């Protein structure tokens, strides 16, 4: 640790995309054996900085140095050959291939032209043992949960005798206890002499794992310094240039007992083993959290209510009307869904922000000559402003937005729908602290105007900080219900893990995570 030296140095790098200056005159050193935290608001340029180091983008100006020689990468493959690897913010697995194949892809053990299945398996098993990232190694990557897919991505990066590993929001899709394990892995990596770059919106994670922290704002570096000199508040201030106070705005008042029931779910069971006998009610203006471990069946319930997943039995009523179980019907009766995976289920990456925002509600802009472009444009940009989407224009392809802003586009879509019932599946994943608050405020506004909200979230603090009431699912069943002051991390975690699993580690038990950050 004493002999930390710069492995990769970025000097005066700039990068512009169209009218967006993503990076401006950025200089930073990533050191061997150190974890370098990178924080900043959505669109601050964190991912872009890492992408120029990994060879995904070429900088417009400035230079990059690997040890003492200048580095000019033309592709990520060249970077990987030099030991510079990254785990991208968006997953990029080959869904039809097994976990083993995905992890060793490009570095397969072989014997002449023949791939050695056994050697590959052994290598992957060794990796899993070493880092404690359990995944079923023969499963097809596409059949895994998002959290498991994330682990496969991380294993892939770890398996490449890497010298620099970039982790871009690696814990955004992980449950609390898995995230804690990942942080251990990150520390161990650094101890073995790897330079780690760690990007996260969970500032407490960064504070606990990083040696050095760089704060970015609007494409520039605000400061780089030792992590021990930073605090949650100082990072937030550096990122936003202002103090934002509490992450969670005050909750809207809980609905009166005679408030109308908007959502009534009765004895809902899936055709498979995903969930069984789920019943719940949400009143107008009420925000209800659906907590539990990843894989507990929460997203499946969300989809079943929305009509995008067939059910074996049970009924769903919205405002007294029974839903027929089709997405169309749900949309017509005022239900909106923000799906869990923005890339696979949410967005048309190459289409403009406008089209992505208005897609389910195009009927509203119907004119005699097709869609009325100006009204559509106006409505889309209003909805996007409402939740704070930062985009060059409404016609920018969604793929050109930063990760957090892409998430906000989905939220804008829901706002545009003015639903009676909003189902939000991890709506703040990858969203920065300031914008999180903007999203919570938008949620609250919707609740105040009488919308019922079902919030699926793996962040216990988010559930506690925003919901009137929380339901906990375990293995496909609702096992607990907590209200108001009864909602604590301990009570929710205990219910999520169930009796007899006292060894469960939640990050709530870690000293670093106690400081009032959502998760």
């Amino acid at each position, binding site marked *: 640790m004493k002999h930390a030296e710069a492995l990769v140095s970025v000097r005066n790098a700039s990068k512009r995309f169209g009218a967006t200056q993503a990076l401006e005159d950025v200089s930073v050193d990533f050191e061997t054996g150190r974890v370098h935290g990178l924080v900043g608001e959505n669109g601050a340029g964190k991912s872009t900085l890492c992408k120029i180091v990994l060879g995904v983008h070429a900088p417009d100006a400035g230079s990059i140095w690997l040890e003492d020689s200048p580095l000019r990468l*033309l592709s990520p493959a060249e970077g990987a050959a030099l030991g510079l690897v990254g785990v991208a913010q968006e997953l990029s697995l080959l869904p039809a291939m097994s976990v083993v194949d995905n992890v060793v892809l490009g570095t397969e053990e072989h014997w002449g032209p023949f791939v050695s299945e056994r050697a590959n398996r052994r290598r992957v098993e060794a990796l899993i043992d070493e880092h404690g990232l359990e995944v079923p190694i023969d499963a097809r990557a596409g059949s895994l949960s998002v959290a498991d897919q994330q682990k496969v991505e991380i294993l892939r990066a770890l398996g490449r005798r890497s010298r620099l590993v970039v982790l871009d929001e690696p814990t955004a899709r992980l449950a609390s206890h898995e995230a804690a394990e990942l942080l251990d892995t990150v520390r161990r990596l650094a101890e073995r002499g790897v330079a780690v770059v760690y990007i996260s919106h969970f500032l407490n994670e960064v504070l606990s794992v990083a040696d050095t922290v760089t704060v970015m704002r609007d494409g520039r570096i605000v400061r780089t310094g030792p992590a021990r000199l930073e605090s949650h508040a100082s990072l937030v201030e550096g990122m936003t240039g202002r103090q934002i106070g509490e992450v969670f705005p005050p909750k809207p008042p809980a609905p009166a007992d005679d408030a109308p029931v908007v959502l009534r779910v009765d004895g809902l069971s899936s055709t498979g083993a995903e969930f069984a006998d789920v019943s719940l009610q949400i009143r107008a203006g009420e925000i209800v959290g659906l907590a539990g471990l990843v894989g507990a069946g929460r997203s499946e319930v969300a989809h079943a209510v929305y009509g995008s997943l067939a059910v074996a039995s049970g009924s769903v009523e919205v405002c007294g009307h029974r839903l027929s179980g089709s997405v169309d019907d*749900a949309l017509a009766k005022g239900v909106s869904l923000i799906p869990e995976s923005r890339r696979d289920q949410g967005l*048309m990456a190459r*289409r403009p922000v406008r089209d992505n925002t208005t897609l389910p509600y195009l009927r509203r802009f119907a004119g005699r000559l097709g869609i009325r472009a100006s009204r559509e444009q106006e409505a889309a940009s209003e909805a996007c402003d409402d939740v704070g989407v930062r985009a060059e224009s409404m016609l920018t392809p969604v793929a050109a937005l930063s990760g957090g802003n892409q998430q906000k586009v989905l939220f804008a879509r829901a706002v545009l729908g003015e639903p009676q019932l909003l189902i939000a599946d991890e709506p703040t994943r990858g969203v920065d602290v300031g914008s999180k608050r903007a999203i919570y405020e938008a949620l609250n506004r919707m609740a105040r105007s009488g919308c019922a909200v079902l919030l699926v979230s793996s962040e216990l603090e988010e559930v506690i900080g925003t919901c009137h009431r929380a339901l906990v699912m375990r293995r496909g069943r609702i096992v607990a219900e907590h209200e108001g002051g009864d909602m604590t991390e301990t009570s929710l975690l205990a219910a999520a893990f169930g009796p007899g699993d006292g060894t469960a580690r939640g990050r709530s038990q870690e000293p670093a995570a106690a400081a009032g950050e959502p998760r």
Partner: protein
Amino acid sequence: MMAQVLPAARRYGIAVVTVALFGLLAATTDGFLSQANFRNILDQQSALLIAASFATITMIAGGFDISAASVFVVAPLFALQVENATGSAGLALVVGVAVGLVVGVANGLVVTALKVNSFIATLATSFMVFGAGFLISDRSVLRASTDAYPAIARTRWWGITTGAWIAAGVVAVAWILLSRTRFGRHVYAVGGNAEAARLAGVHVARVKTVAFALAGAAAGLAGVVSSSRTLSALPSDDFSFVFGVIAAVVVGGTSIAGGEGAVWRTIAGAFFIALMINGFNLHQVDPIWQRVIQGAVILAAVSIDSWTQRRPT
């Protein structure tokens, strides 16, 4: 300055190149800048434009339809049989389009309900349709028996043939459908991310089926227009028409992967290829070499397109 010019050049690349080719031919080639030559080009392109503008929609929706060739060959055979039997050109036209529509709907259902890959599905239906063409025509050339049938595409309005007017109308309809309507948006959504489209309430199967159906009907119309120009139709199993269609769509820059593209691109692509061939002919390039060069140019156009879209920015 470059920052604004480059993306625009990328975006409108094919249009720029087509205009440049036009300029080049105008400057260097005798006989290019004549009304007769332009009319000729328009006439020759009309059938292809009709089929290609709707093939663009299918491709954006994520489908790959090669049955256009078989419909193009066979629809006029049905149309001419009807014309020979009833003497009605109008009815013949309707039947020709209907044949295409039926094939298109069948393609759409096979692709969406049976979940057969669209290339394979339309290859299979192509063989069936070609076969039907030999049956209906009894393997012989069919000729128009009235003056009304040739008039469908050969009448002149303001110096331009009705065939070209029909093409212009069809192109306009496809363009508006794709860029201004809900159906058009749904087409882009289905091709761009089918699961996201489904969750946004888009009827994915319905949109795809309609896209195939319209492409079939357009190919049928293209066949009737073409046979009306040549006064006859001949059964065959010649796939070449659809290759011209796909070349125009792809050279224009519509993505084979779906989700991206535009009708104007296909028009630019079609005219780029047409101007190139016209230039060769006026310069009397050996037709055998024309093919080789044409293939190379298509390859170059498509590579440049994918290079500008993928290169690290």
